[in-house]
């Protein structure tokens, strides 16, 4: 379980997060939702120790984030931030291979290569494995980063808007893959999701944020109600149902 207590964060003079406390369940797919500027990404980056904590604390399965060495954390959680274009010219296989680095520290063993190949296959990147990242499309690069994160083989996966740049088919197959990692692989996934319906269809646990505060959390049926979502996005939102899951009707 990830336990967040009393977390506040400021960037310059503007407060991004106000005294956040929450528990993110282990062995579940947790979705962070909310309007732009709600602080979802900041919260994820703080949990993933990509930004230093200013106040409050985060524990990961009982281990205090600020006291655990960063290289040990890399064996327990993998973080995928929002990608900016990178200057490095790496082949996909090399990029995904760096996901194994926390395990082998520069001396890859056969098992590492095997995991890399599995990750490439899982994101259908086999054919592109020897291409350079600056020669492929944004969606393919996004899948390569996801493969790298998965290749890290950690209990926890923290993903910041992983659906960016992915088309409909790849977005759905990514969510299915994450669901499988949770149900079959016993992993825990925390992901920021922009499009509420993906949370509705796949998440086990939903955390809704607005203006730096958590306004609702619980199962999809508890959180994704017409009332909560209308308040969250300041716009009337209807909620229907499809195959036993909530279906958010925000586009009509």
């Amino acid at each position: 379980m990830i336990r967040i207590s009393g977390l506040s964060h400021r960037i310059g003079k503007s407060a991004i997060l106000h005294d956040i406390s929450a528990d993110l369940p282990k062995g579940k797919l947790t979705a962070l939702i909310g309007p732009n500027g709600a602080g979802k990404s900041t919260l994820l980056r703080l949990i993933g120790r990509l930004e230093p904590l200013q106040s409050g604390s985060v524990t990961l399965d009982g281990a205090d984030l600020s006291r655990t060495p960063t290289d040990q954390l890399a064996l327990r959680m993998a973080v995928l931030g929002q990608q900016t274009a990178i200057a490095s010219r790496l082949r996909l296989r090399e990029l995904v291979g760096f996901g194994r680095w926390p395990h082998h520290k520069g001396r890859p063993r056969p098992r590492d290569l095997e995991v890399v190949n599995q990750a490439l296959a899982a994101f259908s990147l086999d054919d592109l494995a020897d291409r350079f990242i600056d020669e492929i499309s944004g969606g393919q690069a996004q899948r390569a980063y996801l493969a790298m994160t998965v290749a890290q083989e950690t209990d926890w996966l923290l993903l910041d808007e992983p659906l960016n740049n992915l088309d409909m088919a790849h977005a759905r197959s990514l969510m299915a893959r994450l669901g499988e990692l949770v149900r079959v692989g016993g992993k825990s996934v925390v992901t920021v999701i922009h499009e509420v319906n993906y949370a509705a269809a796949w998440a086990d646990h939903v955390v809704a944020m607005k203006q730096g505060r958590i306004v609702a959390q619980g199962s999809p049926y508890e959180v994704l109600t017409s009332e909560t979502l209308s308040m969250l996005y300041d716009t009337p939102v209807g909620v229907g149902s499809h195959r036993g899951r909530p279906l958010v009707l925000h586009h009509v």
Partner: protein
Amino acid sequence: MRLLPAAMLVLAGLSVASLTIGAASVSILEATRDPWAALVLMESRLPRTLAVILTGAALAVAGVVLQALVRNRFVGPETTGTAESATLGLLAVTILFPASPLWVKMVAASLAAMLGTALFVAVIRRLPMREVMLVPIAGLVLSGVIGAIATFIGWQTDLLQYVNGWLMSGEFSGVLAGRYELLWVAAVAAGLAWFAADRFAILGLGDSVATGLGLSPGAVMRLGLAVVAVVTAMVITTVGLIPFVGLVVPNIVARIMGDNLRASIPVVAVFGAVLLLTCDLIGRLIRFPYEIPVGTILGVVGAVIFLWLLYRRPAHG
């Protein structure tokens, strides 16, 4: 990969040429019998050839490390204020503690170079992210400003001659046995960079990725800055400023084989040595028996390669 053996073969050929060419007409084949030829070979030709190879290799590696640190392809140790800062450090220690031993001066130069490069990194962190071309411009102007300070101090303290020796176009004509050995320190620093190649490659992917993989971006940054600073400081004090090697060689190698630094750093090193040795040979032959400094040759050759890199079609498929 056949690239490395091929490049090493070229380097070997150039080295033999470098050993046979010089103002003194001696045959190196005679060296075993002719003591004069042996003297020329051991005291002048061999040290010079080694010095060129060490410098080229170390500068190219420093360039690749720097480019990974700042995530920009259009910078090199000579366009980021590193060399000028090292000069400032040398100048300071020469003025304040004229009697200090060589190693103290080298440490001072390296520390100053590191500070100067860190200043550059701090400046470019404040530039708009997407403006790739602003980074080298900022570096060149910063070099100019720091260089102006160094020149002015040198001029006021009658040390301008030294400052010019460090910052004007570098050359190897003064290299003799006993006067180039600091370059081995630069080579060791470059070797260290190879050792930490994965760390630099990961940092090149971004601070978030590096942190996510359990690296401390700050520590890797400091290690990289130290490598770049030591290489630059040793090179400018021994042979002067050598432009463009650290800038164009990593670009060319990355174009061919990408940025997996563990695999590419040896190639970068050999390519750097080949480029510098080629230019040094051109400088020695074009106006034989006079010499044109290799820095001048590289200023022309390197600028042309750089303009090509700037306007080539991007590698995107």
